[in-house]
């Protein structure tokens, strides 16, 4: 009946008046295709991110079904809260400032100059970023311990110690982001300035630095985000004296079962993060605009020992790599071969087959390793499907302004999990997923932890694949369409082959990040399903030299696993694509 009527009205429309406006086709498969591509990630985000976070926030505002803000006034009137907010901001600002400061000479050295073993040095600088936070925490703790190699600095359980570890993590973000742009800056602009009488310092200050500003701002905002939400490192290094909003949420929940304060703190954390994200999004847009302006050729020249700038950069680079990166990791490895009785040997590694001194653990470390690998694999698959679809949708430039805005919003939405702390996600899961979701009881299905890790990994997948998809000239797709390819074949024969390398890299990222994920997992993993990072944290928290030795050996195993995954994935990186991490 309805169909008849529509046909009737269409016949009318095709009459004399409507002849030059033929009816549009009613069913278009492309609409269905894109609809699914938008619906799947949005559904995932709604169920596994928005719902838990909103439920958490609601707990802060309406604890017993009625709006009650006393929790807020109570938490916000505690001096401890403001001290933690202050500490969070201080460590984030310091961590960001030093990451940028140390990252610039390294970016110059690794992207603007060429020398033997540059590829190796570039790889080395990337490793820290993907190392699990717990491992980094343990490494620096070993370094700063009173009996450790840097014990004399008195950095144990100090703000400075935490900042050093944060810089260790995030220098690579700065190097990568700034270096990618620096490598392709047209050297002729600098040459023009020099020919106008500007010395090297003035050229750097008036030409190079302003050109790099978008990349520096973009890197700084992302690093700030990471520092402000750092959890594992702070928890391991801060001890009882230093904490952030993030660790406080964890402590309130797991130690004091004070869910109301935790909820209020989560809301506070959301406010800080949203502000940082807004700044980050703006900086990123400027950087992508800037990247379009540069040439595709590398502007790197051989390192010259006659140039003072080169010598300074080389020295700074060597000190940073040796002192900040090699020393803590080498210290960790060395210390892991130190047996509880002080002699050297592989005893700590042998002990990985046990559940620790006085049964500190429910499972052996090897069993936890197997759990970690299984979990990370599942998380990677989920993150790739969701993140891949988001990248695909967001890479399009729809014609209508409304749709373009919608795409921009989607882009921003999927950055949120990057900023919203893993602890909040884990805590939110704890609050909401105690009942079956869509007919599936996630807690018994063993999918709860992988899903939580995927929530954390999705933004990385998006940020890795998206720049490559965006860089594809839309005319390539137009040519393919004109040559007879429908939308599906355009995706398969143009987008997919070009983005394949970045998908490989994203797979490595997602896997490495899931392997090391601690914040959310620590809430959700049951004792018999503990992952490697959870086991490591539990071991260092228990008394006994044997347990500590095991924690070190387990950290080395986890670091080796992560580094191996990343080394393989890094081979797929296309430096020209300008990914962020």
């Amino acid at each position, binding site marked *: 009946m309805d169909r008849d009527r529509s046909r009737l009205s269409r016949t009318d429309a095709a009459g004399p008046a409507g002849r*030059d406006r033929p009816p549009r086709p009613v069913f278009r498969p492309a609409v269905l295709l894109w609809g699914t591509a938008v619906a799947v990630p949005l559904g995932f985000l709604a169920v596994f991110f928005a719902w838990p976070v909103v439920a958490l926030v609601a707990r802060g505002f309406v604890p017993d079904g009625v709006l009650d803000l006393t929790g807020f006034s109570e938490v916000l009137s505690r001096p401890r809260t403001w001290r933690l907010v202050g500490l969070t901001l201080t460590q984030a600002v310091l961590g960001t400032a030093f990451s940028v400061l140390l990252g610039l000479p390294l970016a110059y050295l690794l992207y603007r100059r060429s020398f033997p073993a540059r590829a190796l040095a570039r790889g080395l600088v990337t490793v820290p970023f993907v190392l699990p936070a717990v491992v980094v925490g343990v490494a620096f703790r070993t370094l700063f311990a009173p009996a450790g190699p840097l014990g004399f600095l008195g950095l144990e359980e100090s703000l400075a110690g935490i900042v050093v570890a944060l810089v260790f993590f995030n220098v690579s973000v700065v190097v990568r982001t700034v270096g990618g742009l620096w490598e392709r800056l047209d050297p002729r602009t600098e040459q023009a300035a020099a020919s106008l009488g500007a010395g090297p310092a003035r050229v750097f200050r008036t030409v190079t630095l302003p050109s790099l500003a978008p990349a520096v701002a973009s890197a700084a905002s992302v690093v700030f985000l990471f520092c402000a939400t750092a959890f594992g490192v702070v928890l391991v290094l801060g001890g009882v004296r230093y904490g952030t909003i993030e660790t406080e949420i964890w402590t309130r929940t797991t130690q004091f079962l004070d869910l109301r304060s935790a909820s209020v703190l989560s809301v506070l954390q959301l406010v800080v993060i949203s502000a940082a994200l807004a700044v980050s999004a703006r900086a990123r847009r400027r950087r992508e605009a800037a990247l379009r302006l540069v040439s595709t050729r590398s502007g790197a020249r051989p390192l010259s020992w006659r140039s003072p700038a080169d010598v300074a950069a080389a020295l700074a680079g060597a000190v940073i790599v040796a002192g900040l990166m090699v020393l803590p990791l080498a210290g960790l490895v060395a210390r892991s071969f130190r047996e509880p009785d002080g002699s050297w040997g592989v005893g700590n590694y042998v002990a990985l087959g046990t559940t620790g001194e006085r049964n500190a653990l429910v499972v052996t470390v090897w069993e936890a390793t197997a759990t970690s690998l299984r979990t990370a694999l599942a998380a990677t698959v989920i993150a790739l499907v969701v993140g891949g679809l988001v990248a695909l949708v967001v890479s399009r430039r729809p014609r209508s302004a409304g749709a373009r805005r919608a795409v921009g919003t989607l882009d921003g939405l999927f950055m949120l999990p990057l900023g919203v702390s893993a602890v909040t996600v884990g805590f939110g899961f704890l609050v909401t997923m105690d009942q079956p979701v869509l007919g599936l009881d996630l807690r018994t299905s063993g999918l709860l932890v992988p899903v939580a890790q995927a929530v954390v990994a999705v933004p990385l997948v998006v940020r890795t694949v998206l720049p490559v998809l965006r860089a594809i*000239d839309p*005319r*390539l797709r137009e040519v393919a*369409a*004109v*040559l007879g*390819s429908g939308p599906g*074949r355009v995706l398969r024969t143009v987008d997919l082959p070009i983005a394949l390398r970045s998908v490989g890299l994203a797979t490595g990222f997602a896997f490495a990040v899931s392997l090391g994920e601690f914040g959310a997992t620590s809430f959700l993993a049951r004792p018999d399903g503990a992952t490697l990072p959870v086991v490591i944290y539990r071991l260092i928290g228990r008394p006994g030299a044997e347990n500590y030795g095991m924690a070190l050996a387990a950290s080395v195993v986890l670091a080796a696993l992560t580094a191996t995954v990343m080394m393989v994935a890094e081979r797929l990186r296309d430096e020209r694509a300008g990914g962020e991490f």
Partner: protein
Amino acid sequence: MAGLEIREVSVRYGQDVTAVDRVSLAVAPGEVVALLGPSGCGKSSLLRAAAGLEPLAGGSVLYDGEDLAGVPVHRRRFGLMFQEGQLFPHRDVGRNVAYGLEIQDLSRAERDARVTALLGLVGLAGYERRSVPTLSGGEQQRVALARALAPRPRLLLLDEPLSALDRQLRERLAGEVRAALVETGTTAVFVTHDHAEASAVADRVGVMDRGRLLQVATPDELRTAPASDRVAEFLGLTG
């Protein structure tokens, strides 16, 4: 009427930018028509509208009498060539040319034969296994032409295909493009801002300015009887 027929077509960007303003143009089968005009005059937009890459704000595009309004880009059996070849970087020369053939019902041998024939046509015999970045600008455009012609499009749309090349090469290639189009009997619309190129390639030339089509005529007619001062000015006949 056979061939391409553009009837009162308008293309708008947003609310207030009218790129093409009620243009009508007919191209007979086997004919090559050049659209000539300064940059921003709407000639590329008109071409993209004919290909189905821009939605029409008004009017209609017909081929062999069939209205193409509901026909998506990939079902129009047109060919398209851009200023810079837009070759697929992940495919070698042979597989670029074969791209449009892969969805046709051809045996592998037939496809290879067609690729070989077309590379011969554009003077690149034996280039099948070469990768795209190793080609010069002129070679890339030849490959793009071979790729566009391979599926035997009923209409080829060329959007300033030679403008990125240096003058000498451009003049030589213009002749070769004309020869390739005539030899394959391809109907074509060729967009350019260079009137010498337009005369070299096309049977008829349409002069466009600010979204309007001012005059369509053979190159000789245009030179001897420009319809307006603006046409004469753009052909370099005044001053």
